[in-house]
């Protein structure tokens, strides 16, 4: 275990779950977990965040990796992703590209190559930005999370992670250990991002969709948006509207209008509430069309 002093905090890097548990039980308050540091290191430097103990999770090497569990009798297949898996690993993973395209599609649009080499999936989720690029894909992929704390572990659907911008429901001593994606073979998924710049830009709005058809009609649909509210959101009215309908551009456009109705975006430096409301239908329609095109 490495120990060091940083500006105003103590840094440590546990190498095992026992060590981590011991640190968390001893530390009274002010614990923060460090993954890639692409959000946290910046926030600690600018003083936006501060902590007494900085616990680096990178010593827990088993938190990295992507693996598939094949389908068995009565159990769907799934892909398990360790929370410290880098965004770049998501981007280049053939398994994800084939079975959960929306996620690598989002990953390759996050930040720059240098950022993606360091940034992790767990960090992107725990940072709780309403426009975190991996959030909408995980919502439409029905992802669930395994959380761990010294008192045990629990599973939650990814949508139960976020309270509001910058705030999760994680307990102070709780980390995200693993992200699980149940596999659905007949599904097409897609991700899109709206922002003025082609790289290194936080989205004004991002959107993901997942679609399945049966006899030409929509038998399963998920739509999720970032930047449409205080946290990444599923657009359940739009989904309900589409279920059972034909997958046409017209229906997708109508779903987009519904999505705008169930959104409550805020005005920020990047874009006004009005601009977001005007573009939500556009992005929703386009991402649905893209998901449809992925259904072969």
């Amino acid at each position, binding site marked *: 275990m490495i120990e060091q002093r940083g*500006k105003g905090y103590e840094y440590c890097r546990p190498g095992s779950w026992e060590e981590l548990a011991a640190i968390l039980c001893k530390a009274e308050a002010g614990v923060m977990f460090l993954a890639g540091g692409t959000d946290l290191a910046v926030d600690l430097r600018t003083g936006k965040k501060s902590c007494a103990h900085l616990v680096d999770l990178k010593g827990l090497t088993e938190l990295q990796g992507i693996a598939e569990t094949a389908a068995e009798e009565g159990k769907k297949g799934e892909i398990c992703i360790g929370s410290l898996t880098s965004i770049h690993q998501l981007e280049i993973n053939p398994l994800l590209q084939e079975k959960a395209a929306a996620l690598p599609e989002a990953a390759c649009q996050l930040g720059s190559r240098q950022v993606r080499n360091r940034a992790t999936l767990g960090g992107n989720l725990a940072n709780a930005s309403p426009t975190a690029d991996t959030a909408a894909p995980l919502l439409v992929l029905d992802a669930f999370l395994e959380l761990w704390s010294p008192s045990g572990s629990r599973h939650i659907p990814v949508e139960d992670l976020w309270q509001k911008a910058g705030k999760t429901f994680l307990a102070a001593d709780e980390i995200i250990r693993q992200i699980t994606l149940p596999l659905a073979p007949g599904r097409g998924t897609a991700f899109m991002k709206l922002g003025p710049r082609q790289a290194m830009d936080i989205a004004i709005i991002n959107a993901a969709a997942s679609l399945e058809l049966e006899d030409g009609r929509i038998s399963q649909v998920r739509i999720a948006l970032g930047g449409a509210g205080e946290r990444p959101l599923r657009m359940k009215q739009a989904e309900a509207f589409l279920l059972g309908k034909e997958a046409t551009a017209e229906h997708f456009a109508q779903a987009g209008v519904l999505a705008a109705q169930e959104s409550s975006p805020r005005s920020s430096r990047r874009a006004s509430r009005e601009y977001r409301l005007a573009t939500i239908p556009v992005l929703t329609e386009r991402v649905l069309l893209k998901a449809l095109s992925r259904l072969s």
Partner: protein
Amino acid sequence: MALRDLAVLGKANVKKDAYNKITGEAKFAADLKFDHMLYGGVFRSTVPHATIKRFDASKALALPGVACVLTSKDIPGGNRIGIILKDEPVLVDDKIRRVGDAIAIVAAETQELVEEALELMEVEYDLLEPILSYEDAMREDSAKVHGETNLHMRKHLESGDVDAAFAQCDVIVEGTYTTNMLSHMFIEPDAGVARIEDGVITVYASTQNAHFDRGEVARTMGLPNNKVRVVQVTTGGGFGGKLDISVQCHLALLANATGRPVKMVRSRKESTDVSAKRHPMTMKAKTGATKDGKIQAVEVFMTGDTGAYASYGPAVIVRAVVHCMGPYEVPNVRVDADFVYTNNPMCGAFRGFGVPQVSVCHEGQMNALAKALNMDPIDLRILNAQRPGTVLATGQVLDEAVGFIETLQEAKKKAAEVLDTCKENQGVGVGCMWYGVGNTGLPNPAAAFVEVLPDASVNLMVGCADIGQGSSTVMAAIAAEELGLSYDDIHVTSADTMVTPEGGASSASRQTFISGNATRIACKQAKETLAQTAANFLNVPKEDLIFRNRMVYSSKDPAIKLTYPELMAEMKKWGKLAVGAGAYNPKTTYLDAKTMAGIPYEIYAYGTTIAQVEVDTSTGEVDVQKLISAHDVGQAVDREMVEGQIEGGMVMAQGFAVFEKIEHEKGKIKNPIFSKYLIPTAMDVPEIYPIIVECPGEAGPFGAKGVGEPALIPGIPAITNAVENALGQRFFELPLMPTEVMKKIRG
């Protein structure tokens, strides 16, 4: 004019700074280290306009490791700096005029201690009314930023009879254009180190003008110029933002007070907060033409906010006025311009000195005029283009080196080849520019020293700062061409005030022209001695000798020759040294105070960009797809470097047109960092087709003009006009952010 037969120029050489930068060996100011070095920092105001009621640094001074805290009282010499007007305090004495004014400076053992010390300093202000807009500034009863009036400068240019001409026009178009405050975002934040040795203060700095810095440091320290040495270290870009004093004077004060070397490296935020910005400008224009498209009259009224200090403001206003009718023959012109002081961030030089701003105006007018006349935009421009013999609004008559029409023709030819047939919401736009090379109506000389060494290698010393644009490469090529040596024979030492002569600023696209001419003159002088020696040896008249490719031979009989090493051996034998000193000052005149008549520049560069864009009308996003840009550079000294300038300029134009804007509130910049001030990334760069047009005259070295700023300018209006043409809507304010475009589309 006959094509020049050149041995070195017009090809591509490996840039002099390439190897060190690629291997990482190049040392930037932040990389410098000296024994016992301290670190320095600046305590800055957080309010835009105030007097200081109380300043207390006692807690900071009590911190172990803090070497000193200095305020205005500790300045041994003068406490006013500024490129043109000396209106900025080194450290605040009378009052605070902007957010970020320097109140005190500190030196300490580590950077961390510097930051801690800054946090321990206390200040109390008596607030004054902040002046935050042109309207505020011009109110009779408003608080004054400096002296008795906030009107920083007022300029008037008049030629012909404008009112009578408008009365005769068949078509008149009008528009009011606004451009915003912009930031250079040079990649290396300002930094430097100062140290004292043998009674000389040496400042190593990231700068565009070492010799100017020397004068400012000397005055601040109360020292003669030759007791201050400023060395420009490897500099990561400037674009005009490193022409003002940044860390130099503060470093000298701290090194002087402590007797130890002191280093300062600004954070990105500090750098953006206090370095000069591009002037936001509003331009109200009226253009009149006959029904066959001949422009008869142009009238412009422009206002600009120079912020708290003048910086290069006086140069921007004058240049903007002289250029605002565009590269056209306009017989009747009237321009009025007002620049004001406010308590906003300081504005100064930024690639183009006001010409990018006015290009948005004159090219917006041309686009509107072409539509009103139902004329092809290129034909309209060719019809009105400046050409050899054109009489400018200043009364200057242009010589033969005017390649504007060629840039229009070449760009049009390329457009036919590479542009797509426009679909709905796609558009093509034309943008043009002209740019007077060098400072406006002012002397701005530069000099060079040269010595050809016994082995025929060369030491060339120029004051000109190479900030990445490649001036040292250019000077080496010019010297090699003139001396008849190869590019690799020339070693360039630049911008070190103890070694090199005055070079003036690396700004105004002037160095290729001015330092280039100085270099050539110095080489000619050295060549005099070489030629005399060679003539004696070969027994031919020295006028017949040709120096080329490391040989000297007779133009009458190339078999009569000697190699350069042989020549240098001859020189040694007779005790001759091949040295030269050259200086060049462009042939300009001061401009008339009332009408601005005169000769503002010796030569002009021209450019035409054609842009293709596609607008996503559902999201307002502008996709800049293709940019063709043709530039009359007189003579390309190095083709690849010219193309590089054009490509870089086009990307900056894209940033200007669609992304960039400094947002400020109550004098405070809200987006001083890269995550909030968006510039184009490699992923945004469109297809760029650079075209080099060469229309050399006699003025520049081998006919070369400047291209540094011209490379940026025409791209901005070309993109804007392309968006206008795609949507059939006029845009009067930049940048064309998706939110703004959407508002226009939705009405």
